[in-house]
């Protein structure tokens, strides 16, 4: 294993789904159900059994819209406000209308959701306005349940192949070029439609621990979806709206608003005082978190030591077993106990992830990107705050739409020269006798991301970042060196991470205002609705560098009253116009 082999195979399918985490499996199931004759291939860089953000499971649904607890109108309004108004509501509204059906479907797969004595879903309130959080008592079974369904539906699964570039031709998608992560052999997949579900760009910033893989996101989510969409010519929206999350200091577990919050836990400063109204993750909340962290009352803590023993035990049962099972080990090693003291928190490294923010490949309410036949869903598509249930639901939309799209088209022709060029690019680090290993290229890129791109954003710093990224790119293209196929995968990831870093800098420079709280806090600029109440769309320009344009926010489906618009703007306890969380 890992020896570099020379090989090139081509296969054909109707629908290629890249990424077998959350959105991908649901897209595959829905496409196959809609068109049982379709040849559906699900491809993953890892193993679909345990790939993606929910590798070990998930603690709950953060954004379920369940009749009796919330309405689609209310949810759409909440997410629009939480995202500072920059939101094409059609996709959010369709999600809100149809996610309940997906919950019932997941239930039928054997994934259970918490119910009360009356058998009703036991939904908790965390958000500022509505009630959407639904715990999953057996959340550790998600991947196994999904995998069973994939086998039953006879989806063709290809593991350990990493897609590196999309193929296009005749003005639409034509397939993808993939490389085996254990042999470096190439696989060209011709497809009539391609659905991308490649997750977040989670290895963009460097975590405070300095460990390259100690990221908030599953470290295998290194941003290939963003890079491939970019190189294929698709539009990417609002990349300057970074993901930054509150975490346990040095550990990549959330604090956590969704589990501890509904049970009485909260975020406190060093004096044990609550300082934010609502722990729901938004840019405004993160700005208050950051201010407290930097101010005289920092650092910031997770406070649970005022809770009853049985409550703490229940929080531990959820937080330490399902989504982040090593969390108990972490606290044990540090000698910290929720019962005895507050737990130090910090902010995460930056990343792209629409699951918690709004940056991503631009899609509409059918999960269509700007390239015909190409879809994106989950953390890498720009439907704001869509979390796991959003990945499932938007993945379903993509699968259903792709099943219709393929009925009327044949495989698009593409230029074989593109495959040859990609083979040359991919294999370059294997052709040298020595040079710079990928981990050093990656470390340097990510250290520069922290030094210069982390908010508060400063123009001169971002310009320095752009200059330094170019130097790293020169080093990478002329001198990166790998010894086996596994290192080659890391080299390709390093290249993706650098692409994402350059996009993050370019997008942040373009939007000359501040918006989304800390996510895009450009200290030299105020919020400017007159000029910047719009999406920013980044594409690959003629010169091979990021190009930008503004795009109107589509007319709202659900109107927002003037006095509701700022519900998320004042998150600090004691600020005058705030709405109480409880």
């Amino acid at each position: 294993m890992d020896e570099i082999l020379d090989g090139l195979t081509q296969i054909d399918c109707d629908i290629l789904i890249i990424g077998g985490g959350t959105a991908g499996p649901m897209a595959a199931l829905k496409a196959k159900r809609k068109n049982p004759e379709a040849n559906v291939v699900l491809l993953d860089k890892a193993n679909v059994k345990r790939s993606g953000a929910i590798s070990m499971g998930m603690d709950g649904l953060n954004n379920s819209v369940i009749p009796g607890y919330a309405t689609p109108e209310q949810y759409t309004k909440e997410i629009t406000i939480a995202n500072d108004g920059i939101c094409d509501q059609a996709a959010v509204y369709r999600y809100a209308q149809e996610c309940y059906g997906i919950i019932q479907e997941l239930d039928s797969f054997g994934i259970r959701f918490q119910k009360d004595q009356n058998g009703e879903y036991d939904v908790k309130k965390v958000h500022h306005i509505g009630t959407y959080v639904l715990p999953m008592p057996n959340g550790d079974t998600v991947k196994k349940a999904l995998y069973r369904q994939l086998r039953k539906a006879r989806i063709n699964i290809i593991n350990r192949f990493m897609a590196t570039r999309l193929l296009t031709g005749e003005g639409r998608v034509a397939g993808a070029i993939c490389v085996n992560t254990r042999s470096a052999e190439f696989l060209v997949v011709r497809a009539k439609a391609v659905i991308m579900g490649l997750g977040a760009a989670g290895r963009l910033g460097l975590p405070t621990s300095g460990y390259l893989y100690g990221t908030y996101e599953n470290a295998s989510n290194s941003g290939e979806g963003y890079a491939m969409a970019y190189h294929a010519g698709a539009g990417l929206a609002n990349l300057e709206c970074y993901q930054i999350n509150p975490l346990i200091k040095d550990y990549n577990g959330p604090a956590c608003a969704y589990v501890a919050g509904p049970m009485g836990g909260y975020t406190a400063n060093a004096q044990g005082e609550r300082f934010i109204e609502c722990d729901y993750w938004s840019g405004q909340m993160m700005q208050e978190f950051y201010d407290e962290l930097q101010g005289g009352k920092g650092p910031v803590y997770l406070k649970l030591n005022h809770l009853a023993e049985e409550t703490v035990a229940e929080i531990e049962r959820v937080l330490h077993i399902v989504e982040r099972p090593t969390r108990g080990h972490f606290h044990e090693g540090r000698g910290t106990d929720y019962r005895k003291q507050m737990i130090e928190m910090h902010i995460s490294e930056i990343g792209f992830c629409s699951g918690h923010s709004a940056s991503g490949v631009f899609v509409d309410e059918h999960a269509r990107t700007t390239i015909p036949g190409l879809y994106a869903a989950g953390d890498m598509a720009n439907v704001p705050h869509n979390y796991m249930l959003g990945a499932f639901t938007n993945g379903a939309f993509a699968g259903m739409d792709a099943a219709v799209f393929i009925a009327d088209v044949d495989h698009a022709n593409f230029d074989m020269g593109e495959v040859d060029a990609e083979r040359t690019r991919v294999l370059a680090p294997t052709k040298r006798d020595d040079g710079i290993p990928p981990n050093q290229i990656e470390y340097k890129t990510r250290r520069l991301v922290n030094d210069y791109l982390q908010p508060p954003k400063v123009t001169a710093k971002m310009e320095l970042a752009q200059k330094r990224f170019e130097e790293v790119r020169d080093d990478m293209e002329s001198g990166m060196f790998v010894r086996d196929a596994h290192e080659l995968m890391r080299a390709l990831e390093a290249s993706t991470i650098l692409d994402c870093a350059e996009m993050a800098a370019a997008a942040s420079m373009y939007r000359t205002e501040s918006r989304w709280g800390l996510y895009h806090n450009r200290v030299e600029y105020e919020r400017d609705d007159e000029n910047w109440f719009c999406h920013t769309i980044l594409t690959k320009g003629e010169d091979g560098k990021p190009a930008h344009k503004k795009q109107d926010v589509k007319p709202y489906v659900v109107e927002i009253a003037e006095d509701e618009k700022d519900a998320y703007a004042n998150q600090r306890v004691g600020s005058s116009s705030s709405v109480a969380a409880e």
Partner: protein
Amino acid sequence: MPLAQTATTVPVVVNDDLCIADKGCTVCVDVCPLDVLRIVEKEDGKKTAYMKYDECWYCMPCEADCPTDAVTVNLPYLLK
């Protein structure tokens, strides 16, 4: 420009008395999202799984899915 041989402790530890790689088991290698585990032949000719690449998200499928409980996932030293 030769590469350095810098040592590093790894978070995933395999008890090779319990590991049944010799019987053809590759479960931990198969499920790892970061693909950091491999099988190696020991001095006595028997095979065992081990962590070859220090690129761990300490996510635990290797430990959870091991049929003989041979795998333990510790926290990487840098963050523990």
